């Protein structure tokens, strides 16, 4: 194993993106994500890459469309209000079947909201990244190491499926430092025969475009795209299971909230309550198979999130509402304490009778 270094999540993510071969970062500063841009501003000029601070978030995502059209790995990052501004571009990327890495280091909302950590863009990331029928692959890191690893994985998945990968982090993960290894092994690159690059007349020119005025054709594009999404749903669901084997109460939590929940599970176990955690790593596709299978044994679930209750809907859908699902949540930049999660686990342990 290579030597570990101490880095902020935002910085580790940026360094990993460079390791993945990204040489075009287009962004606009916003707390608590700014270290990504600052790191890129420092590093890109030294390696012949492009760091560009655009005039707005919208301009930045449209530049990503341009770079990606040319077959290059492109990335932008922002925090919640800035990601909302990028919605149009996210939809155009999907409509053009272009890969890209988009990072959202979430803060409290709605509106300008605050700058403290949040997970209230779950719906935005998994349901409504923009207009039209489309999905993004959404990865949820919970450690600084995963901030780095998922940047690599994110580019690979994006290229493989010609989709946007969104890394859905939060202020805690962006700002905290942990030991991280920057040895990523071999990085997969993908042929991009669709890229709009010059060939000196060697072949018919490629067109990258989302406009289609013929409805039968546009419908077919959507159907074809959703066939690809089905493959993603079948192949890419990921979750970490923690002490779930004998668990009566299963918490579902991602990102920083999953870390708090692990503390609560240790406290619950010390009190004799069999609690466990399913930590979704992919939020889209949601790990329905793993959560669904857990409902066969567990009596009740607790969705722990920094929002007014968004992921809980996916938990309920995954288990077809066959078990009670409690919500343990804080919002607006507040983080649930292990004690608050423990209290919900205790409440849940008294619910859900026999089969």
């Amino acid at each position, binding site marked *: 194993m290579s030597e570990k270094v101490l880095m902020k999540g935002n910085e580790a993510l940026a360094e990993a993106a460079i390791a993945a071969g990204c040489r075009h970062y287009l962004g606009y500063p916003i707390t608590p994500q700014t270290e990504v841009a600052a790191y890129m501003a420092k590093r890109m000029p030294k390696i012949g890459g492009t760091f560009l601070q655009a005039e707005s978030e919208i301009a930045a995502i449209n530049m990503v469309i341009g770079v990606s059209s040319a077959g290059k790995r492109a990335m932008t990052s922002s925090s919640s209000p800035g990601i909302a501004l990028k919605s149009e571009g996210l939809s155009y990327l999907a409509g053009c079947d272009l890969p890209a890495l988009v990072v959202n280091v979430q803060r409290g909302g709605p509106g300008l909201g605050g700058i403290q950590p949040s997970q209230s863009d779950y719906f935005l990331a998994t349901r409504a990244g923009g207009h039209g029928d489309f999905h993004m692959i959404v990865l949820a890191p919970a450690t600084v190491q995963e901030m780095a690893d998922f940047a690599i994985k994110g580019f690979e998945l994006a290229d493989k499926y010609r989709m946007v990968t969104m890394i859905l982090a939060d*202020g805690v993960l962006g700002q*905290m*430092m942990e030991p991280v290894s920057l040895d990523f092994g071999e990085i997969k690159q993908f042929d991009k025969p669709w890229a709009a690059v010059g060939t000196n007349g060697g072949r018919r020119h490629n067109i990258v475009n989302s406009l289609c005025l013929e409805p039968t054709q546009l419908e077919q594009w959507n159907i074809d795209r959703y066939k690809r999404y089905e493959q993603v749903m079948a192949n890419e669901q990921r979750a970490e299971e923690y002490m779930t084997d004998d668990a009566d109460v299963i918490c579902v939590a991602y990102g920083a909230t999953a870390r708090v929940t692990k*503390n609560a599970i240790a406290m619950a176990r010390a009190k004799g309550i069999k609690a466990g955690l399913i930590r979704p790593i992919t939020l889209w596709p949601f790990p329905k198979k793993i959560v669904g299978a857990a409902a066969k044994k567990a009596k009740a679930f607790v969705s722990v999130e920094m929002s007014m209750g968004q992921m809980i809907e996916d938990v309920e859908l995954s288990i077809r509402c066959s078990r009670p699902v409690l919500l343990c949540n804080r919002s607006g930049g507040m*983080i649930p304490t292990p004690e608050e999660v423990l209290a919900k686990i205790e409440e849940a342990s008294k619910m859900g009778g026999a089969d």
Partner: protein
Amino acid sequence: MTTRILIAGFGGQGILFAGKFLAYEGLLEGRELSWLPSYGPEMRGGTANCSVILSDEPVGSPIVTNPDVLIALNLPSLDKFEGDVAQGGEVFVDSSLIERKVARADVKAHYIPATKLASDEGLSGLANMIMLGFVIKHTGVIPYENVERAMAKVVSERHKDLLDANLRAVALGYGYEG
């Protein structure tokens, strides 16, 4: 063994740097650790704080809500966090900036006039590291013999000239007999 440390004071007192120093020492020892700063406008002259966890097991939540060790460099920080300290925990107070005593009887309080010592000794701006030396002496949170190695790691190339001053500050706090 897990030690949860909260360092708190004004922005500009070197709160985050002090935390970083402890984190680097943990890294060099191959321990599990996390470092989490407060961030945003509150850092500009307002209160700043920094959570550091050093552990032999993977760190769960990086947020220190009940510190085993509280290092308070101003009164608002002591007022805000004293009640959160874990029972039997230790509270370190810069007594040149905080006039009151620690009120709780179930924690161990230590006092050092770190800011005054810093200005008396020509180490102005290094009260944070004097505090750390004092903390290391009383808690053994990191081995004193490792201080030099960690300092060399955390002081950036650009500020190499400050390495000695930082080491002197830690030594001063370590040797302080209150």
